[in-house]
């Protein structure tokens, strides 16, 4: 009994004493009303080495680019190339190990975490729902009017579905509530982000589990809302990324190719391969149709 209690006590204090690697500076200021210019200055990132004596491996290396307010930046690359890590650095889920990230020329380490994250909306790969009603989940983090909530749900093409539920916006979701499909969850997360309307938006593979018709609708909605917002998009589908002002292809933590869709089609072998695999066939098929 006693020895077990002592062991458990040790483990509890371990949790209590773990310090967050991301810390606010004592004199951190509040970031407000950003334009949304984002700069990555020679950013390196590595996770702490878990094996003592073994130097940490860089997950990101020499990432350098500038995204102007209102631009869309698309990230392409194989699994494990560092796309998600890169966007995770912007809201400071992790801190860079070298270099710096600036929003409107302010180093993100100089501002409070809450004020920084308030400017950023994230739609993740695996959308997470909290136990609560659909309304709670949509307005999670903000106080919002009924009308705003419905508008956000409409834009995310979720409203029509919600009203088919017997409790409508008061339907319970999450762990023990009604189960939503992957696409529905994602659209709910999109509605959440729309409601908050942040200046900077991160879409992590956000349309992958939505059927093609819904994806099309969501993309239209997003395109409308990207105006004046700086957006990072991680995607596998070229369809999603080809409108981006800047497309980066990542490989092993480095940006290996960059440019617009048209530039990359000309200059990048990798991009052309992806293109041929995904879009070319479709265009050809359509092309045949168009000729007739």
């Amino acid at each position, binding site marked *: 009994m006693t020895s077990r209690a002592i062991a458990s006590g040790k483990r509890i204090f371990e949790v209590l004493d773990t310090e967050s690697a991301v810390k606010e500076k004592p004199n951190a200021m509040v970031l407000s009303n950003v334009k949304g210019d984002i700069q990555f200055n020679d950013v390196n990132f590595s996770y702490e080495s878990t094996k003592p004596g073994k130097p940490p491996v860089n997950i990101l290396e020499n990432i350098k680019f500038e995204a102007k307010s209102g631009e869309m930046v698309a990230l392409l690359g194989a699994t494990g190339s560092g796309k998600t890590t890169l966007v995770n650095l912007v809201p400071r*889920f992790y801190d860079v190990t070298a270099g710096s990230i600036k929003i409107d020329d302010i180093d993100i380490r100089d501002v409070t975490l809450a004020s920084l994250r308030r400017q*950023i909306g994230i739609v993740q790969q695996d959308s997470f729902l909290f136990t609560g009603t659909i309304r709670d989940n949509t307005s999670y983090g903000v106080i919002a009017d009924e009308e705003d909530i419905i508008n956000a749900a409409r834009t995310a093409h979720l409203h029509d579905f919600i009203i088919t539920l017997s409790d409508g916006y008061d339907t319970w979701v999450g762990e023990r509530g009604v189960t939503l*499909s992957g*696409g529905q969850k994602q659209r709910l997360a999109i509605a959440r982000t729309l409601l908050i309307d942040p200046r900077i938006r991160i879409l992590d593979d956000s349309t992958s589990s939505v*059927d093609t018709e819904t994806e099309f609708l969501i993309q239209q909605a997003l395109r409308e809302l990207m105006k004046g917002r700086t957006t990072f998009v991680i995607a*596998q589908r070229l369809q999603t990324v080809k409108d981006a002002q800047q497309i980066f292809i990542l490989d092993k933590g480095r940006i290996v190719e960059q440019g617009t869709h048209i530039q990359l*089609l000309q200059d990048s072998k990798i991009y052309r391969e992806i293109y041929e695999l995904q879009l*070319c066939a479709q265009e050809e098929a*359509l092309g045949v149709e168009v000729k007739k």
Partner: protein
Amino acid sequence: MFGGGMVGGGGLFGRPPGGPMGGLTHSSDLSDDIVFGKVYDQKVVSRLVVYLNKYEFSAVLASVSMVISTLTTLFMPFLFIDAINIVQTSDASTLDPIIRFLLHNYNVQGNSHILTLIFVVFVVDGLIAWGSQYIQQYTMANIGYGIIRTLRRQMFDNLQKLSLGFYDRNEVGRIMSRILNDVGSLENLLSNGLLLVFADLITLVGIVIILLGLNIKLALITMAVIPILVVVMIVWQKYSKIAFLKVRIAISIVNASLQENISGTRVIQSLSREDVNFQRFDNMNEDNFDANVSATRMSGGLQPIVELLMGLAIAIVIIYGGSQAIAGKLLLGSLVGFVLYTQRFLDPIRDLSIWYTELQRAMAGGQRIFEVVDAKIEVVDAPDAIELPTIKGEINYDHVSFEYIKDREVLHDINLHIKPGETIAFVGTTDAGKSTIVALVDRSYEVSKGSVTIDGYDVRKVTQESLRKQIGVVLQEPFLFSGTIRENIIYGREYATEEMMIEAAKAVGAHDFIMRLEKGYDTVLQERGSNLSQGQRQLISFARAVLSDPKILVLDEATANIDTQTEVIIQQALKRLLKGRTSLVIAHRLSTIHDANCVVVMENGKIVEMGNHQELIEKKGTYYHLYTMSYACTDEKLTRPEKHEAT
């Protein structure tokens, strides 16, 4: 699994509790974990008795040892009475009948010899008591855990056989709760509770008889406190049940909140909700604290009251019995005996009141367990089902309709003929019915109207085993089991040789990446293969399908999410996989759709268009609409590289 087809179709939502087709009952609380039933539920008990039959000998042995151990324990204070009485009176007639019998038989005389005999009897009695207690507990554990094992086995067996419809109607969490919590509450009762209840009852009755035998008047006066004690216990039990229920609910809320907040950290941080969530958690934590404190107050409050009543009873014994003893009307030994037995009242009464609650939980648990054991398997082999002979792979849907819930058809009048070796691509929006239509081939669901035939055999007229052996199913999210890659590939085809396995892996292009892993085919997969990429997991499931070499293949293609390099490998693998088989593919890849012999376009549970890609494009119907929306650009004309260079 195939349930995906109905999401958004309204099927999953708003279904009545229990459902029209054998859903599990819901408890009133949200958690579904804490339920109470009747103290004695004839149905549950009679079901359990059937299981007891198997343990006839053990059950008799346990009961006999229980009676022996209870009686021998009850007898012990008697020996104190005897010892004191013999010292006080030197009169052998004050002794109890058993000792008197022994004295007579062995002709023992003189106080010191009598005391020695009493000591010997005490030791023997003690040994018998402990021995029989050991046998009782051991055999009861055997029976109890044996029954629990059988129940778990039956639940598992039935859960595996239940058709997918059952899983559409009952969330995994609730089914798990049955297996974990309900079995747990029954386990407690079966492994030791049942007999202890009887032991307690025997003890109570025994004490009453002994007290009455010692001195009727004193016994009646002493037992005057019993009704008060019983009332106190019942009232306490009622409130403490509520208090402990609150404790259980409070801690489960705290745990759920912890789980949710830890798994949702990224969202919470990105929305800066830490403070609000902390406040919420703090409130829940406080509720838990309050619940525990008041429950402890409850149980703590009982002890003094009971002690007080017991003290009162003993005080009565001492005052009244003492005066009787002084007057010479009561032997000293009997007085001590009264005190000893009165103290023994407490335990059985307290135990019984606790078992009262346990019984309620166990009965409810039992009822819910039998719901799972009895859940009707909707898809069963016909009594005259035949073995499906080796098939060529011709499939025919003849006026097929299907409904998950009565009068809500998901498929309407489907007619489709598929020749052996053809690849059919099903296309349509999420709830068009694509998943459902392919799930009818291996009888994962049963048609509501019409028939599905394979090589002319109605799938309902052949055994499910012979049917499913010839049909391979590859799901969108391949389910990999914890084990090595080798075990995962040969899953279900354990007779496969090493060469066959490697050949299958090579056929789908999985061999190279497997060999690059440190341990090759012996690489142990983590939970659901999370140490592999999604594409690699798919390739393994393809290899599994190739190895089993089915004539008919049902494939739910994964949507996107795969990086380009893997995509190339998968497209090639798919070609190999589909070759030479009748394949039903829920298609998301354009390459698959292109290569299909026939594209079936579905909308609202109906086939709206059929033909190859080119024909359908030219038709400019639903397919054309879907296609242009999904794949083509709407806002600008795409510039192809060649054209670009040309301009």
